Each structure stands twice: as structure tokens, then as C-alpha cells.
């Protein structure tokens, strides 16, 4: 069975500093990886997916199959990036069900 691990529950950075959220997964095949974000009082929403290879709100994430990681990075954190971030995985053969990590709470301080 697939599993997603986010080792950091809390992450605090200063505005303008780089931020990296770690995500590791266990699955022997080729998964699809996502980052979801939940801002205060808002619903869970998709931030980015690895197949898009996009930069969304300044965030990027690269799938490293050798290290089975999908870390989320932003070079200069902003206060509006304070939120809960979830790494998630799906495999095409399981009807696109998402398996989530436990989440990382990011606080960006002024």
C-alpha cells in the first residue's frame, strides 16, 4: 500500500526567507504526487501537481523517484503563505484516490 510521510508538523520562517516542506512517499510503481494547501477558514485546494511542472504562487516541487521525495520549495516566503500544506499521492490504477500525509503547518513571520 502507498504511504505519504511529512516529517515536519510545524515550520516557521521569516518573510523573505526560503521555505522547504518535505514529503516522502512509499510506492513501488509510478505515482502521481500533489501538494494541497488549506488557508485559514478556507477549503482544501490543489496547489500543484508534479505532472504539470508548474510554479504556482512561487512554489515548485520536483519528483525525485530515486529518493521517493516530492519536496515543496519557495525561495522567498510571504506572509500569505502561512497555511496548512498536505502532500498527497494517487496511482492511476486505484481510481485516483488520494492518500494524504499528516500535513505541515507553515507560519511566515514578518
Amino acid at each position: 500500500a502507498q504511504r505519504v510521510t511529512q516529517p515536519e508538523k510545524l515550520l516557521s520562517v521569516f518573510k523573505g526567507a526560503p521555505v522547504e516542506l518535505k514529503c516522502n512517499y512509499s510506492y513501488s510503481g509510478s505515482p502521481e504526487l500533489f501538494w494541497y494547501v488549506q488557508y485559514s477558514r478556507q477549503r482544501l485546494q490543489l496547489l500543484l501537481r508534479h505532472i504539470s511542472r508548474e510554479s504556482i504562487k512561487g512554489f515548485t516541487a520536483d519528483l525525485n523517484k530515486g529518493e521517493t521525495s516530492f519536496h515543496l520549495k519557495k525561495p522567498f516566503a510571504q506572509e500569505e503563505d502561512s497555511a496548512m500544506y498536505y502532500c498527497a499521492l494517487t496511482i492511476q490504477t486505484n481510481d485516483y484516490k488520494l492518500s494524504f500525509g499528516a500535513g505541515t503547518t507553515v507560519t511566515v513571520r514578518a
Partner: protein
Amino acid sequence: EAGVAQSPRYKIIEKRQSVAFWCNPISGHATLYWYQQILGQGPKLLIQFQNNGVVDDSQLPKDRFSAERLKGVDSTLKIQPAKLEDSAVYLCASSGGETGNTIYFGEGSWLTVV
């Protein structure tokens, strides 16, 4: 475009009572999911529907939880009888149609069992 709608947003019940949550997915989305999110954890899938059929309910505690999507649109999740450990946010999500396999979530229904 309207998002996934859920109600009620908040519910407090005593243990052994029953509760029902309602979900209206995004129009045109054939796939509907119910997730349970316990405080401090990531969402966990309870059940997945494709139209009005169940695709996966392997994680649904069937002795007390039930869900239906009779007409392939709205869905109801019921808990009876509730236990203290059922305190969680119940998230409904949907996917399909023009948005492909991107999953969209509702705001969630917060349940506290006392």
C-alpha cells in the same frame, strides 16, 4: 463555478446518537468522495462513488457508518451510533467532467461527539 457544498458545517452530538451529513458535488462530476480528517492527521478516504455506485468503501466502518448517492448526484453520510473517536471533519470531494481527475473539496462538516 459553484464548489462542493456541504451541510451542516458544525454539529455537536452525544455519543450513541446519530448524525447525517449532506454533500452536493460540482455539477457534472461523476466521482464523489467522503474523507475523514481527525485533528492533527491528513484526510483519510472513507468511501468513493462513481455515479451512484460504490467504487471503494474498504476504509468505511460499516458497523456504524453508511453512505449513499442514490441518484448519482447528492450524497449523504450517516453515523449511527456515534462514538467519541468519530469527532473529526468530514470532507466531501468530487472530480470528473471538464476538470478531469483533479479533486475539489468542500469546506467540511465539523463533528464533535461528547
